């Protein structure tokens, strides 16, 4: 990487940060409890829209994991989720009616909040349908992980997106508020992923899983990216580039080993495919607020009408993180 390219990436990062600062005007605070954030607290950032049914379990899951404060941007919800979140003592909430797409799918909003409130904190950026698992997550709180990362001078932690799905029609079992979505969407694809290296940003580009297998089998190059770096020791000069797939400065994307070893990594269990999905897909299709002209949702909608079963004979049923590590989807690295 030459000096010229470094310089261009630097400019790019500056532009993202400037954009984030500009977009702060779109956010209106509903409850700002950020004064309660103590030094060393672990923060979670999220955007949400009409996810009221998922929020109770989502908050519980991450509270139990040891997240200290939630900073959430609501995008024009109408289902009471704003009131629900405003009542939570460890949630700071902002709301905006503005375009999700034009804030680069929420990245600008969160970049701003992270710049403002997350400097020097470990931050986890996840959607309400994403559940973070890491090595030893059943016996060690997330602070054990961040302390270890600090001790090892590691600033960013990779967690690949793992699409979970139910067996049978995705709308067969209704999801209740507060329920563990993995009780329904408990299956995943274990070994059909494609990895390429992104030369400019230095990250890996991972595609595959059930979405490639079923929805994008004729145009695999357009299948959604599954590489994610959701856990970062934040600095106000950092910026997410596109969702949490990659960051700048690009050294943060070096979450993989190139000399044969394995670095520690986790997974984000993506429980998008519940009965709520069909309704959501229709709505998002109308709003046209998603990536690549909502291409993903259009494909889903047409496929799901035909045969809405993602399950196949070789689907793997989720047990725990050790299973994912044995399957080679995540790794303990040298954490023991």
């Amino acid at each position, binding site marked *: 990487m030459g000096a010229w390219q470094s310089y261009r990436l630097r400019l790019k990062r500056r532009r993202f940060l400037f954009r984030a600062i500009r977009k702060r005007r779109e956010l209106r605070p509903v409850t700002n409890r950020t004064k309660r954030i103590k030094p060393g607290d672990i923060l979670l950032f999220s955007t949400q829209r009409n996810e009221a049914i998922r929020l109770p379990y989502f908050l519980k899951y991450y509270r139990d994991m040891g997240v200290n404060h939630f900073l959430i941007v609501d995008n024009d919800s109408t289902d009471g989720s704003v009131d629900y979140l405003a009542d939570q003592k460890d949630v700071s909430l902002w709301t905006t009616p503005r375009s999700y797409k034009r804030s680069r799918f929420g990245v600008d909003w969160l970049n701003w909040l992270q710049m403002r409130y997350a400097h020097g904190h470990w931050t986890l950026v996840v959607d309400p349908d994403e559940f973070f698992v890491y090595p030893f997550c059943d016996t060690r709180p997330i602070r054990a992980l961040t302390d*270890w990362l600090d001790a090892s001078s590691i600033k960013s932690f990779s967690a690949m997106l793992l699409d979970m799905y139910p067996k049978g029609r995705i709308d067969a079992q209704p999801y209740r508020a507060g329920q563990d979505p993995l009780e329904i969407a408990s299956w995943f694809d274990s070994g*059909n992923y494609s*990895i390429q290296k992104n030369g400019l940003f230095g990250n890996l580009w991972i595609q595959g899983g059930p979405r490639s297998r079923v929805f994008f089998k004729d145009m695999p190059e357009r299948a959604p990216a599954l590489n994610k770096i959701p856990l970062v020791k934040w600095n106000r000069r950092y910026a997410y580039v596109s969702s949490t797939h990659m960051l700048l400065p690009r050294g943060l994307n070096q979450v993989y*080993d*190139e000399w044969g*070893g394995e*670095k520690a990594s986790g997974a984000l269990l993506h429980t998008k495919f519940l009965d709520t999905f069909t309704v959501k897909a229709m709505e998002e299709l109308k709003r046209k607020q998603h990536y690549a002209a909502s291409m993903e949702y259009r494909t889903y909608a047409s496929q799901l009408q035909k045969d809405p079963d993602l399950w196949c004979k*070789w689907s793997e049923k989720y047990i725990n993180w050790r299973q994912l590590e044995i399957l080679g989807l995540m790794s303990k690295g040298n954490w023991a």
Partner: protein
Amino acid sequence: MSVGIVMLVHTALGRAEQVARHWHAAGCPVVIHIDASVPGKTHDAFVSALADLPDITFCRRHRCEWGTWGIVAATQDASQQMLSEFPEVTHVYLASGSCLPLRPVQELIDYLKARPRTDFIESATTADVPWTVGGLDHERFTLRFPFSWRKHRYLFDKYVELQRKIGFKRRIPDGLVPHMGSQWWCLTRRTLSAILQDPKRPAYDRYFKRVWIPDECYFQTLARLYALNIESRSLTLSKFDFQGKPHIFYDDHLQLLRRSDCFVARKIWAHADRLYRAFLTDSEGAMNRTEPNPGKIDRIFAKAVERRTRGRPGLYMQSRFPNEGWENGKTAGQYSVFQGFAELFENFAPWLARATGTRVHGHLFAPERAEFADRQSVVNGALSDNAVLRDYNPRAFLGSLIWNTRGERQCFSLGPRDNQAINWDIAKDPNAQISVISGAWAVPLFQSNRDFADIRKEAALLQKIESDFLDVLHSPYVKARIRIWTMAEFIESPMEPLQTIIDEITQKTTRRLSEAPHMADLSGFGQFLQNLKNQGMHPHLMGDFPVTQGAMPRNGQSPKPYLVR
């Protein structure tokens, strides 16, 4: 007789206090060194929290940065204070704030009482230790290190390089033989006071101040001068990762630590409540164990280092994506590739599966779909037979297949009609066994009922592709086990090569093949090749076939299989 504890603390002072009280309760005097970088308020609170205990004192503070002299200076001062303030102390145990006694302190006292003249200090000459960080072993005693390894790595490296180039060397003081070892030791009063009161100490100190990471060699080297009986091991269980950082113990290590029978472990995560509760309160230790036995813990941490540095062969994932040549196994297991066999033999796949007990696929890289065994549309790991998905990343496809079926050997056919994108990958893979019958692609053309002009065009194309593949297989970079026959060569005596291949797959040589696969009927094949030649297309890969009948060693419409005696 008693054991004095020298404790170096810098963070998690609450835990340090708990542990200090624990030592004290067992009758051990404690001298605590608090890192100079701990803020005044925290320091004062810590000191006053321990004010109620008479035999806990605090020594002069130094700044203890990793790999610097401060740690040695702190240890010296604290030890000095221990020896002069507590004359009944016979052994001094060096511990940190994140050390945790695993066995009742009385057992440690008894253990040392039984070995009154023994110094427990890991101490090895530089030539004999593999665990030096940064590749510096003997040079850490002969070069200068003014730049911090952690903060100014570039300058550190450059300065080392420069000194090597100009041949700079510091002189090691006379009589010293550099030794290194774990920072955590337990020395007798005799040895320790000899080190601290040595008239040459100022000279030694001056020398060691400029040595890299002096805390791992100062006492380790000097103890060799005075000790009567050195046990070169540390009583503190302390494991290091591949960068030389200590592994940390958590609540889920409780059983492991219990079974280790070590006296003290470091380092313990400050929030590991269960560990602190278990080892500082319960007295479940009266089991009369003798020697520490950290075998199982050793294995777990050795495995962690191995995973971090070597990884699992054949695995490509979010946190392991090796550069070319660094895969440590391009694929996860051995597999066999057959070119031309499925064309020459009518029932090759089922025959091979029967003969070897492996999983035999068809043409995995066929243009229509991946022909998985048993015509499955999805196989292990939910790998799809879709050709578009497969061709999007053929290398990942093959890598995934081999990874997903670890423990079961995979065999598949390849041919010039198939996607050729993985040719170099398999040729350079030591796990691959590639067997080629060159020119056998002509058999399906020969049997087909197509226009001859089409056949001629296709034959030319396939010959070109196969010829390119053979060039790959002949390159000097090849690592696979490769066998190539021309078709003419092969059909002369097919059983021999088949036997060799199968013996290699099954790793047995005793069993002879009792059944041969059906060979396609080749009567007229020679003429077919001649026709191609007559059309100006020269098929050369299959070797020499006479034009007349009899190229086939047998005649008739329903050829019988070979029977081998």
